């Protein structure tokens, strides 16, 4: 598996990360290096082996349906770059 420059630019766009042309070129090399390294795993034959979801046997913990959180508006908004009253403010997005 490998990526080309178009793929790198597309992933950057989908993630809303601005990268320059030079950065994209550099990123192609780096990402392909990482992918090639991970690809070594393909050398192991794991036919018929269940995917492992956790290293130790562990079960998903579930919560009861009770309200135990929220009502912390000021904390939630504390680091917002822009806030308007009780809202987050973001650049206008409209269809």
């Amino acid at each position, binding site marked *: 598996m490998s990526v080309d420059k178009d793929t790198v630019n597309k992933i950057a766009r989908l993630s809303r990360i601005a990268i320059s042309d030079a950065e994209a070129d550099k990123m192609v090399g780096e990402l392909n290096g990482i992918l090639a390294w991970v690809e070594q795993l393909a050398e192991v034959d794991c036919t018929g082996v269940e995917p492992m979801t956790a290293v130790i046997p*562990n079960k998903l913990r579930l*919560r009861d349906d009770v309200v135990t*959180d*929220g009502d912390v508006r000021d904390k939630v908004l504390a680091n917002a770059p822009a806030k308007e009253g009780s*809202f*987050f*403010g973001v650049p206008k*997005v409209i269809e």
Partner: protein
Amino acid sequence: MSEYRIQGNTGEWEVVIGLEVHAQVTSESKLFSGSSTGFGAEPNSHVSLVDAAMPGMLPVPNRECLRQAVRTGMAINAQINRWSRFDRKNYFYADLPQGYQISQLYHPIVGEGEIEVTLNEKDPDSAVKKIGIERIHVEQDAGKLMHDQHPTMSFVDLNRSGVALMEIVSRPDMRSPQEAGAYVKKLRSILRYVGSCDGNMEQGSMRADVNVSVRKPGGELGTRTETKNVNSIRFMMQAIEYEAQRQVDLIESGGAVVQETRLFDPNKMETRSMRSKEDAHDYRYFPDPDLLPVELDDAFLEECRASLPELPDAKRVRYEAMGLTAYNAAVLTAEAETAFWFEELLAEGVDAKQGSNWLMSELFGALNKLGKTLDESPVNPKQAAELLGLVADGTISGSIAKQVFEIMLETGQGAATIVEEKGLKQTNDTGAIEAEIAKIMAANEDKVTEYRSGKDKLFGFFVGQTMKAMQGKANPQIINDLLKKALG
């Protein structure tokens, strides 16, 4: 079921419809956090640090949300997957602080099922069609954006962010707007019976993404478009009609349908492309590393099954077996609130036939006049049972019952109290009735003669006169018997 065809220049076209219904799961708290799901709260007050996607926050699933999804699956006879998993659906939008929605793509909690729909659920003779359901999965809702509060900014309220949704994905089994409408109605009815979603489309508890394509009847499937977030059954049917016609026109004029996301504008009654979402289908799904797989054990599944109520189809069959007409059984079971009201009436000891007739004519009639729903009825099942009990035991006649009911609606008084205070009790006093009959016969000698010479229809006249003379309070059966005797 119905042959719905679009007449084009090149012949007839068939419409193929599949629906993805998003139903808000009824729960106190959110899918992965302990914040409240309450509607209409102060902006950003029902938000925890998890919902706002602060760094390091971890999701913990709400058992009730999974339980409701499983119960819903059982109600549509679906395969329940004991092992399911959450995936991240990645996209960037201002209403999604995480940058991904936690959803279930590869291993949904509920698999294949189906529901039966009829075009007219109140007509028992209407044809039945099975609509396949491909899957139900559980996912998070996004926040809400407001665009009209500020000239250059949009405002974000995260109260809805993280509320649990069930996405119910149908097979492309529907062939007309009417079938799609009937499917959503039936689905909403089932959700409300089960109690897994309130089905309130106005408040956005249920919304549909509508997939439409057209083809020559029986031909290969055409390219589909997806119209997002349609929030009423009427709009959905209009969107399908418009979109199918648009596709036919496009193909017949030499164009091709593009697979894309569209938006329905109910003011202009048209769908239009959402160009900004052209990358939207590239979601780069992967298993959410913050969450272990969901494994359901026998005890959990058993409780889900045991807690399911009787569902509309089963209830309808049982009502018919109790002697109700097919029409009455269909009307009483179509909506959960009607069925539950009727059940309460039965629990108070009211006869099924008497209760169903009264509910459908008197109560529905009165509510209609008052412009109220059954939930807002000024008379509850217990009060209604008191009234019907007075009719059943002969204390008052059916026509007096109507008067009493009107007073109940106005004053909120109990039926027995009204009958007592107004002296409306039906009389079985044969002496009094006979006296009135004698007077009427004396005053209408000509009619008595006519009756005796074979004009049977006049019997009704004598009944009416007697009842009037008794101010409606005489037992009609006794009047009948005494009149027959007197007129010979």
